[in-house]
């Protein structure tokens, strides 16, 4: 290799974190939690996950996503049914996907490269929101229609991408590999 290569550019940009935080806070503001508890829950969830995946032990791992997902679930579960809350719940979910694509453990530009995955999901959210706006009926029926639509979208994606399989468990790169230890080698 010729000369030292420049340090790798990592993801974990501020923009996606701010976007996700803003979407979660706004969903909390529209939601049913008293006073400013909604935005606080949203901000805390995003902050905890961001801090965990940037500085925590086993950063970049799956567990770091849990605080953000819990905050999203709490906010979505307590929000009243309205077109605006529907829209912001969907946007918060999409912002979450953008945020996980911008992982500091991966090369930069993850959000751009993940567009082929995020765009159909955004299309699904948009379609569902358009249907809820167009439907005339009780909120319960709107919810049911949305659920059916989501199920149909998932089924369609499932058929397109094929059957998923579970990934085999493997040690991460940073851990010593037992098979390569001085006493196990050769």
């Amino acid at each position, binding site marked *: 290799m010729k000369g030292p290569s420049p340090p790798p550019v990592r993801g974990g940009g501020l923009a996606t974190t701010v976007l996700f935080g803003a979407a979660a806070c706004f969903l909390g503001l529209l939601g049913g939690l008293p006073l400013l508890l909604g935005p606080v829950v949203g901000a805390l969830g995003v902050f905890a996950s961001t801090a965990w995946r940037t500085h925590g032990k086993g950063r970049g791992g799956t567990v770091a*996503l849990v605080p953000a997902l819990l905050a999203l*679930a709490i906010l*979505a579960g307590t929000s009243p049914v309205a077109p605006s809350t529907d829209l912001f719940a969907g946007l918060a979910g999409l912002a979450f996907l953008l945020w996980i694509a911008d992982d500091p453990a991966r090369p930069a530009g993850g959000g751009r490269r993940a567009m082929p*995955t995020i765009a159909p*999901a955004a299309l699904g959210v948009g379609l569902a929101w358009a249907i809820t706006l167009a439907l005339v009926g009780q909120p*319960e029926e709107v919810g049911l229609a949305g659920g059916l639509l989501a199920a149909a979208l998932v089924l369609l994606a499932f058929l397109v991408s094929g059957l998923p399989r579970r990934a085999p468990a493997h040690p991460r790169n940073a851990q*010593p590999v037992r098979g390569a230890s*001085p006493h196990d080698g050769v």
Partner: protein
Amino acid sequence: MIEAEHPPPLPGPVHWTRRAYLLVAFGAGLLALAVAFRDAVPLFAGIPLLLAPFLAGSQGSRQLSGADLEWQASGLGPDVTITGALRGNLGSSAVDISVEVPKPLGATDAEPARFERDPTAIRFALRWRLSEPSIVTLPPPRIVWRDPLGLTERPLDGARPSLPLERYPPSLHRLGSIRPARTTTLPGEVHSRVLGASGEFFGLREATAGEPPRTINWRATARAGRLLANDYRIDRTGDLLIVLDVRPTSLGPDTDDRLLGVARAAAHGIAESLLREKTRTGFASFGEFLTTVPLSTGRGHRIRILRAIKAARREEIAGPAMRCALGLRRSYPRGVTTLVVSSWTEDPSFNLVPYIQRQGFPVVLLSPSPLPMRARTGGLDPADEPLAERLERLERRTRLSELWVHGPVVDWEDFWTLEPLSRIMRRPPYRRIS
């Protein structure tokens, strides 16, 4: 002749990662919440989570087929540099391909790993520092494509060679220059009194500085116009038997394994250096029973003996030291210089040296010390650590000093040099006097 083009290897299956299962679980929970409470908001939050794992696997990696790996190790002593390249039609997915190179036990990063990616290759360079000598074979790295969201992954096919990594003290390279004492006759060899001490004539060689005049072949020198000396068959080879102790000790399996790794690396380096100089070398490992490779030399024997050293593993049951000595007596002629590589921290009856010596083998003990591996693991105050280390060292030296009546002992603490052993092997009882 036009060769038929091989079809590209089929891409491996796409797997879901734990992150994908987490997203689907949360998405399904939100969907259930929405249906149960007739509330559409959780459903909207859950749609992206439910869809993303299904969509992620179908994007981006369809054009990826296989990539071939070439890698090599370089460096000296504790420094290891691994360089390699993954070649194939990677395209724009190269940035999402991860090469996870397994790190040997006890290795630390000397520098951050460097990766250079382009559409046809991923080149990498890793620099490690080993804490102790070792001989290992690095398994092929795990090479997977992961989608940018980290939800799905696909292992890439292609050539994946293993990488042998052999690191032993650099001073062992000079050990080959020592001619060990000749203690046995070659098979079928009959000593002739007429031939004198040097034995059968073997060939001519360039005379070295300080060559005795009796070894100069004056007729050949006159013909060639330069000083040529006689080389005798008996000068060609000496004998050394390496005995590796693979019995378990009270230090525990982890320390035992690390010590055995160091001992194997030393045995490997010593055997390779001596066999390069055509010294007759034998190898035995003793756990519950004795496993032996007879004394011999040559290229085939070199492969056989190095393979036996690499295959030596710590055994679960310790055999009695007497069994080892009697086994050696049956397998090797008496008088062969024997290098016992053993950490020996047990009671005196556990020690191989007296038993082997009593069977007529001159013994040198090379004892890898467990102290560097146990340093700062006792949970003591930093102020008390030096005192504890000093006491342990004194106790070990006291125990080892009792063995000097049987033969020289090398207390091997600095694993990256074997100069004390070289000094002992240069002494007359072990080196042939010319």
